[in-house]
């Protein structure tokens, strides 16, 4: 009898905790959804307003397009595309070359550091790492003078690309080398016994094995190229046909600079400018998030 009561009590205690857990889970969901709403709200406004007439933006900024008050208009996207497509193409060219250069030179250097033993290797590697500590604020003036005045790379894509590749070396070499070091020596030694030279071992072993980290570095280089505005604007200023997305959107794609561009066109342009990376992320979010959280930080 007593045991039955006891077990009954225990049961109700169990359901109680289960209920409490479920209530707290619902609360967590609710808070997250509210926060998510706040985080995404600016983008909601951006999207809905890019489908409206300019006058409706001021009257009904929050409403969905397609109502009698704010009819759905698609023309803004066509107009915006006319301006944005050139910026997009430039950004893609710059990003692809930056990614290719960064991955190639960083992985080569990482291979040199991890598969060879030469005098002064550790000193050179430390020098590489030390550059992670140099703040950009210190080198901006001399780097600009160097690229613009000494190397005469002003208003060229090379002036944007080369410093970006160089700037990507310290972190890139460090991350890829860490990855190469994780590959057992025996794998490389077996290939060497099979007569594979360094170039073949680099191409057929080292690179394929380090795909995850190459992917992560490539993505962050892509984001960097897409978002870089200060350096790209300094270098490209005055050469409208070379402007990247960020520079173009900021400098000339603007209703105060160009009277023929209305606010809806501007918002449609923002949507177009954002779409490519959103798509890349949608397709690769798993690897992207994994790369960000696993390899990135070990302090």
């Amino acid at each position, binding site marked *: 009898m007593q045991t039955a009561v006891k077990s009954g009590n225990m049961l109700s205690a169990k359901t109680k905790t289960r209920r409490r857990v479920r209530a707290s889970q619902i609360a967590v969901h609710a808070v997250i959804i509210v926060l998510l709403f706040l985080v995404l709200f600016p983008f909601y406004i951006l999207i809905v307003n890019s489908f409206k007439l300019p006058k409706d933006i001021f009257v009904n900024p929050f409403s969905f397009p397609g109502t009698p008050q704010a009819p759905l208009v698609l023309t803004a996207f066509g107009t915006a595309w006319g301006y944005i497509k050139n910026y997009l193409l430039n950004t893609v060219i710059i990003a692809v070359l930056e990614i290719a250069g960064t991955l190639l030179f960083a992985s080569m*250097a990482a291979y040199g550091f991890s598969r060879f033993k030469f005098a002064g290797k550790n000193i050179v590697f430390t020098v*590489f790492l030390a*550059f992670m500590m140099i703040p950009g604020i210190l080198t901006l003036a001399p780097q600009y003078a160097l690229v613009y005045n000494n190397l005469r790379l002003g208003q060229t894509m090379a002036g944007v690309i080369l410093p970006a590749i*160089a700037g990507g070396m310290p972190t890139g070499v460090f991350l890829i080398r860490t990855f190469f070091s994780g590959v057992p020596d025996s794998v490389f030694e077996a290939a060497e016994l099979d007569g594979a030279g360094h170039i073949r071992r680099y191409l057929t072993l080292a690179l394929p094995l380090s795909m995850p980290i190459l992917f992560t570095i490539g993505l962050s280089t892509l984001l960097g190229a897409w978002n870089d505005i200060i350096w790209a604007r300094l270098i490209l200023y005055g050469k409208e046909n070379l402007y990247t997305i960020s520079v173009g959107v900021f400098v000339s794609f603007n209703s105060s600079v160009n009277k023929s561009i209305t606010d809806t066109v501007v918002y449609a342009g923002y949507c177009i400018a954002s779409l490519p990376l959103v798509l890349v992320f949608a397709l690769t979010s798993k690897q992207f998030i994994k790369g960000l*959280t696993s390899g990135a930080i070990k*302090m």
Partner: protein
Amino acid sequence: MTKSFKKIITSRENAGLLWILPAFALMCVFCLYPVISAFTHSFTDWSGGLTASFVGFKNYGVLFKDNLFWLSLMNVTILTVVGMVIGNAASLFLAELMFNLKSKAAGAYRFLFVLPAMVPSIVVLLLWQKLILSGSSAGVMNTVLRAFGLKSTEWFASKNTFVVFVSIFLYGFPWMGGTSFLIYLAGLNGIDQSIIEASKLDKLGTFRRVFLIDMPMIMGQIKYFLVMGFIGGLQNYTMQYAITNGGPGKVIGDMQSGTMVPGYYIYQLICGTQKEGVGSYGYACAMGMIMFVIIMAITVVNNKVVKSNED
């Protein structure tokens, strides 16, 4: 000579140097040279051209008495510290929410929180300036204020420095979109499950667990954001560049002072603003050197202090 050179190149181990060469050469030109140039030119009247003459410590002397520089140092300190507290508290809060969530929806939430990081940052900045913290009555924040019976304000366009500071802090509210919460979340997921279980057996509430167990266990991540936050924050001038232009407030020299920060000061000097009595590039280099020293010092102190907490 050629023989020994050939020997070095063909020596099995020294061939490693060839693999490193392209990266090394690029870094020498675009990273190492600018550092040396910044140091040496900080003692000259350089104005960006191919020549400059030595002026000793003049730039540093002028800098020391430059009110705008001191003001910009104060501004950047306030912006960095407040921004870091807000941003990290928000990211940590979101990470804790996600950590305590046991649901299949977690992946979708995570995706949606990271998504805004894919929108070009200049687009987000202009979006906030034009739509959210817009001075017009149709602006989102002004609409919200009116709904609560409060008066609209000009936000970023205000003549009041305090209002502009508040706008900069409000920017990005609730400061959670992006990737930093993922790093905290990874830290939380790395905590040994048995420790969490033990805390449950000890009837430790979630709130106390966050402060007594979670926070100490993710000191590594907190330290990372502390170090990176200072390094990035002290150099940052995105807001000034894209929105405030250093204003509002008194104009000192040719520059506005209200939200001026050292990074934007340097940028202005590069873009042709003159500082009386000194070469603008030499002066920018001197300012860069001071910022470099400050950033290095803070990084070292950060590492020391947080490390001693870990032990």
